[in-house]
């Protein structure tokens, strides 16, 4: 029983990270109508920025998260303005420009990997944040890093929710996400808002990177795995649905952890996709998905 609980706790905390990345991918998708295939690399860049700030400035952990989010968000805005804007202006989805955007995303992921390789090298960097002793609860020992992941991710999700529901800027973000023409006619500066959305999407991915850093190493190729898991999570929850992304992330995390613990650890990456296939067979739009939007 205790083994089971341990596995669930590990699964939930990793699932929070998947959920956060899935959330950021869904957020970008809802705002820009594009699936951003370089988002794993944004997560990687965020983690590296976290490590560098940790080594150079010795910031404390919450500050590291916030600083990396801001810097990565800025990086994202620059990338979007310089490379994506021309394509997204032509429309997303199944348009020719939408297809171009998918290829452009893949290209950007390779570029970012290589840039990171040039700057930080191929060797995995340790991210030795000290969280203090694990918490003992009866028979359970709970490493504080997991607690950090869960609580930081929860805080970010709540802040995002409040931002979208309660602020004027959040209201306009929702408007742009749902219908850009009408948003324009409301007097919203849509091009600017698209940058804001992409920046927030990148900042969320960066937070996930800084959260996972201390329990894994930080390395150039870390974005590949997370992209696939986050996609599985987003699709399981219902693509484009923000609460669905988080739910999907938790499900993928727990499934993976239980599978690795009870079946076999060497097939760890398969469980997420088994879950994905089952969910798609039962409810093709995902658990919280409503309609099949025509977007690519």
């Amino acid at each position, binding site marked *: 029983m205790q083994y089971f609980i341990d596995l669930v706790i590990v699964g939930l905390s990793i699932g929070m990270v998947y959920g956060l990345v899935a959330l950021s991918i869904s957020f970008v998708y809802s705002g820009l109508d594009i699936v951003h295939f370089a988002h794993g690399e944004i997560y990687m860049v965020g983690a590296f920025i976290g490590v560098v700030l940790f080594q150079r400035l010795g910031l404390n952990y919450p500050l590291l998260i916030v600083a990396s989010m801001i810097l990565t968000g800025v990086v994202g805005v620059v990338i979007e303005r310089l490379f994506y804007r021309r394509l997204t202006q032509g429309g997303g989805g199944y348009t020719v420009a939408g297809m171009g955007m998918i290829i452009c995303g893949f290209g950007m992921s390779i570029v970012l990997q290589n840039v990171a390789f040039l700057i930080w090298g191929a060797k995995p960097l340790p991210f030795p944040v000290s969280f203090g002793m694990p918490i003992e609860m009866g028979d359970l020992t709970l490493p504080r890093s997991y607690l950090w992941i869960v609580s930081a991710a929860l805080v970010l999700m709540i802040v995002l929710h409040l931002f979208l529901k309660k602020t004027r800027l959040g*209201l306009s973000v929702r408007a742009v996400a749902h*219908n850009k023409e*009408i*948003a324009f*006619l409301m007097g*919203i*500066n849509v091009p600017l808002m698209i940058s804001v959305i992409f920046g927030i999407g990148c900042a969320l991915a960066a937070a996930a990177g800084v959260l996972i850093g201390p329990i894994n190493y930080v390395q150039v190729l870390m974005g590949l795995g997370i992209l696939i898991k986050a996609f599985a999570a987003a699709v399981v929850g219902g693509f484009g649905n923000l609460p669905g992304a988080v739910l999907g992330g938790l499900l993928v995390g727990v499934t993976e952890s239980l599978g690795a613990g009870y079946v076999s650890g060497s097939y760890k990456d398969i469980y997420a996709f088994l879950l994905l296939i089952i969910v798609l067979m039962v409810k093709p739009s995902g658990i919280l998905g409503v309609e099949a939007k025509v977007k690519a």
Partner: protein
Amino acid sequence: MLEVQGVEGGYGSVQILNGVSLKVGRGQIAALLGGNGTGKSTLLRTISGLIKPWRGTISLDGERIDGRRPDLIVRRGLVQVTQGKEAYPAMTVEENLRLGGYVRNDRAALRRNLERVYEYFPVLKNRRNQLAATLSGGQLQMLCIGRGLMSEPKMILLDEPSAALAPQVVLDIFRIINRICRDGMTLLLVEQNVRMALLLAEYAYVIRDGVIHIEGPAEALIKDDNVRLSYLGGTVADRDHGLTMRP
């Protein structure tokens, strides 16, 4: 107030507008009539900046607005209410209205405008916390018009407010539009419901093949044989309205 001069434009390489010119004076109600697919919505979208004109000029109060970004045109006081009752269905009525007042930064003005809209459309006030998706067609149209008023525009471009609505609802909405205009709004009204539009408007333009084909004072157009034959075919639906609008 609004002056459109020789505007050409369209989508991609498909030309829809072949040199449209029209004028709407301050406080005036002008109607833009014409059959389906003649470019009425395209013209409104060009004026509001959603699509860029290829040639010609558009000016508001003497200042050129052609080719400007739509949000900047809204800030200058020209608002388009699109065809098809495009409210944000996943937002509440009040959130939709707040969005309409997005360019008004101060809370006092926002609250004042909200009250004004609720006064024109009391039904919206009762449903302020409901999702727009739960509204009926007529209420949605009211929401869209109300949302257009929230930024205190000088002028509104209104695209087919009567489309797909029951006659009684159309009558209600036209009464309120009439009231809004008597309170000082300038209006360019696109309509398929030609009788209704000509009763409300002072001046009217008829567009065909992307150019203004006929224009004149509304009373003259009602009597005009061409207009009568083409657009006022005397359909039963139109006659049943009991056209006594002026309250």
